[in-house]
């Protein structure tokens, strides 16, 4: 099966998109034309420069509408595995009791230089997000919120020292791809320090997708609008599977 779709303006398959950008040129009618040609050179048709104006010496800003002939096959995109285990907090607590038999130790942090803890706080803080309680409220989780600007080395050290089962790394704000660099550094360090295999490693943030997460060596990635219970369910199920595969430790 394949299902080709194009952007929808007001008619099926019209391919309409809006763009806005700045060019480092002083505004003139020629600048509008430059913007139009630039967008046309991207393969768009019917390019309309709706707004073009100077915003500072040597800089012009444009709002452009155009149509794209490109289409995308939405059925070719693999479904996200991470939200496959919808469970409530009570169900997750019961699942962990039965399948793991102890609390899951989970550590979260905003890594690298990012100081925006809004994402990690939404998942971990007791209050939660959109009426979905945060992981601190779960009976079956022991959570450590390390806050912001946690260096990957410090994070890995914490994971080793505290026998952490699941790691949440968050990156909200990016500057020239810093989020991807930081995520990569963390997963590589986990590997190098020999803890990668024993933790469920998750990244999150507004630009994170599950595909990106897989590319960077994470077990899952959670993007915009993620609810705490979605993360909790993924961690619980993944950890249960992992423990089931592992040989049982001999009784003490």
């Amino acid at each position, binding site marked *: 099966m394949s299902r080709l779709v194009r952007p929808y303006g007001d008619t099926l398959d019209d391919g309409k998109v809006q763009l806005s950008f700045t060019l480092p040129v002083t505004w003139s009618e020629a600048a509008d034309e430059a913007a139009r040609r630039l967008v046309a050179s991207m393969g768009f048709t019917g390019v309309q420069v709706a707004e073009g104006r100077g915003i*500072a010496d040597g*800089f012009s800003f444009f709002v452009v509408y155009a149509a794209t002939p490109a289409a995308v096959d939405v059925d070719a995109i693999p479904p996200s595995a991470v939200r496959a285990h919808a469970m409530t907090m009570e169900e997750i607590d019961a699942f962990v009791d039965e399948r793991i038999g102890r609390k899951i130790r989970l550590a979260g942090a905003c890594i690298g*230089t990012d100081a925006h803890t809004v994402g990690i706080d939404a998942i971990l803080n007791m209050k939660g997000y959109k009426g979905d309680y945060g992981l601190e409220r779960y009976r079956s989780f022991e959570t450590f919120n390390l806050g912001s600007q946690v260096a990957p080395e410090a994070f890995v050290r914490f994971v080793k020292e505290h026998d952490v089962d699941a790691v949440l790394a968050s990156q909200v704000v990016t*500057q020239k791809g810093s989020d991807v660099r930081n995520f990569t550094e963390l997963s590589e360090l986990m590997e190098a320090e020999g803890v990668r295999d024993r933790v469920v490693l998750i990244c999150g943030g*507004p630009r994170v997708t599950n595909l990106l997460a897989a590319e960077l060596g994470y077990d899952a990635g959670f993007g915009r609008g993620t609810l705490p219970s979605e993360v909790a369910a993924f961690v619980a199920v993944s950890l249960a599977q992992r423990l089931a595969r592992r040989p049982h430790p001999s009784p003490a």
Partner: protein
Amino acid sequence: MEVSIDRAAVDRCREAAARIVAPVEAFIGRHSTVSVERAVLRLLGVDGVGADDVPVPNLVVDALPAERRAGGVARAFGAALAETGLAPAQLGAELAAGRCRLDDFAATPEAAARGAVAPYVDAALARVRSRRSERDAWLQRRPQLPPPLLYVIVASGNIYEDRTAAVAAAQAGAQIVAVIRSTGQSLLDFVPFGPTTEGFGGTYATQANFTIMREALDEASERLGRYVMLTNYASGLCMPEIAAMGALERLDMLLNDSMYGILFRDINMKRTFVDQHFSRMLNAYSGIVINTGEDNYLTTADAVEQAPAVLASQFINEQFAHRAGMLDAQIGLGDAYEIDPDREDGFLFQVAQAQLARQIFPNAPLKYMPPTKHMTGDVFKGHLIDALFNLTSVMTGQTIHLCGMLTEAIHTPYLADRVLSLDNARYVMNTARHFGEEISVKPGGRIERRARDVLAGCEALLERVASIGLMAAIDDAAFADVKRSPDGGRGFDGVFERAPEYYNPFEEALRPAAAGVG
């Protein structure tokens, strides 16, 4: 507009804040820090870096044995000035290169040491005064537009790109430009040196970067016919040094909070209290306006619940600032527009809080921070939320207005983001310029009730803190649900008790200015 508030409750809050701050001030008076001592050296003219790019002020202070450090670096340094006849910059270089040691001059009489320092103290204070009169002259000759003063940030990491962005923003209507620091600089126990072109989420605060930005904005101010102000951060582990550099380079504002570093950066509380005091003495003298950081209470927890903590922190910041000699007109107390946009009547709550601060601190240049916590990738909705923030600011007479970015939570602002944001603010503030003067608040209505509740919550919090003491209260998570112990956190090893003979010539010179205020 005016909201009816219980003036007696306001008086009780101020009195409680005074009781909270007084014992801390006594502690401050008995201590100094490595950053205070480095600021003294910087003001005397010591600058540059030695081996491994370690700043000379750090090398000099770190080389002092603890018992001599307790007497103040100025004393030891003054002795060396007297004995060598060198100027401070040269002496600093000699010490950094290891060609002499302050310990070589331990026997010099105190009077000689003080005498040798005195002309450099006078020169430093004269330079700070002249930078201050330059600002006054600029503001006379090229007056700013009326408040709310539109404030934007630049944060490319490269000071030269920042300069381009700052000039473009000024042309688009910005009246204040802040160069966001590289993330993590607040935790460095030194100030980097020279112009910098790499940073993370911001650009390092260095004296050279200050100069570059000040020159560019002076040029823009001349061209635009209005003075454009420059802002940086006297926060973190180097508050006093940044305050000294800001005074020397004619910065106009500095972010400076009496508790922010403790709560949100895990900097030791004793370090922060001592550092904020000396940095504010310098700010007072240099005519710099501080911006306090109450927005952080709202971004890290629920904004509706944290409103009393914001007001309580404003009272405490006011007290600390007064005791360092700052005038009300220099105290830019913070607040932020952070209530969940899905909350019914959230706008009314924002107006209540902003108006409450306006009436309680009538002469303070209030700093209003934009929505960040509930901004998403939906730039269209974000732009709309920013518009209501802009409306709240103009109708409640806020002074310093940090323009919200429609791309907040996506990336550090693009050049056009700032322009769109400034357009938004200029439109709303122009079309609703006198709205606040034309309306009255319904007695007993939602806004008034909210203002009353926030004030009552604030009084209860201040009373609780006053009863156990500020340090114990922070240890007990009284603010922002964050618990910090008095001897924990970063930078504690840089705090030391003053010896009876402690000497800080700038503190002595500035103290009379501080007396009689607050």
